[in-house]
């Protein structure tokens, strides 16, 4: 499961994905014919795109959880902010609705360093919100 840090990723540019650019819904034509995009991949990028746009999110740290076959995201905040937390959970809830079948597990944590997460180095990817915003 590789959600890429594609800074060019844009919801208005869904050409060839089967996603309507206005509504970001899967078009009925695509559903009945050649809906070829990797649905899960798109869902994860959609998710990342929205979370990275939240100013208070400093980093997103991802790993693949082989035991449950899912992507896990640690979404980091510099300080406790319940409004931001709930915004993130709300995005996740919407995604479950929009992309039924999306399998991910998020953890919103107040932390300024990813180093304490004990996972294999080869499984990790780090996303920087600052880098994303600079695009």
């Amino acid at each position, binding site marked *: 499961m590789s959600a890429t840090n594609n800074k060019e990723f844009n919801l208005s540019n869904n050409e060839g994905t089967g996603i309507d650019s206005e509504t970001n819904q899967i078009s009925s034509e695509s559903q009945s014919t050649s809906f070829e995009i990797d649905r899960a991949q798109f869902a994860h990028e959609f998710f990342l795109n929205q979370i990275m746009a939240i100013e208070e999110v400093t980093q997103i740290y991802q790993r693949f959880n082989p035991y449950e076959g899912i992507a896990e995201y640690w979404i980091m905040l510099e300080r406790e902010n319940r409004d931001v937390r709930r915004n993130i959970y709300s995005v996740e*809830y919407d995604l479950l609705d929009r992309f039924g079948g999306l399998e991910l*597990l998020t*953890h919103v944590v107040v*932390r300024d360093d990813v180093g304490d997460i004990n996972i294999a180095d080869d499984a990790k990817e780090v996303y920087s919100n600052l880098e994303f915003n600079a695009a």
Partner: protein
Amino acid sequence: MPLEQQQHKSKAEENEFIAGELNESVEIDDINEWVVTVYFYSALHHVERKLAQQNIDSGNHVERNRNIKDHISSRSLYLNYKELKDWSEQARYDCWEADDDHVTWCKDNLEIIKSELGFSS
């Protein structure tokens, strides 16, 4: 074998009672993290109790998230449940120190969750 509704109900109430007792304890200080954690487990069993009414049993956290969306369909419940879950994880794994505000918020979250599920006393 899936647990019965009554088992989840008992465990949820037991955990809520324990969280309250821990929070009121004058003999043990600095256990807010455990109070937070036990409140989360109470919430989890309330959710599973509701799902058990529909003969649904969540095998893991991912399934439970999806079951909340698909079979309970409450955004408010989801937000309050996930907040509890993440605070409890911070408490258990991150050496995070919960303050009294967090304990109050957890208790409030649990009440909202119970209300959303129709389990308010």
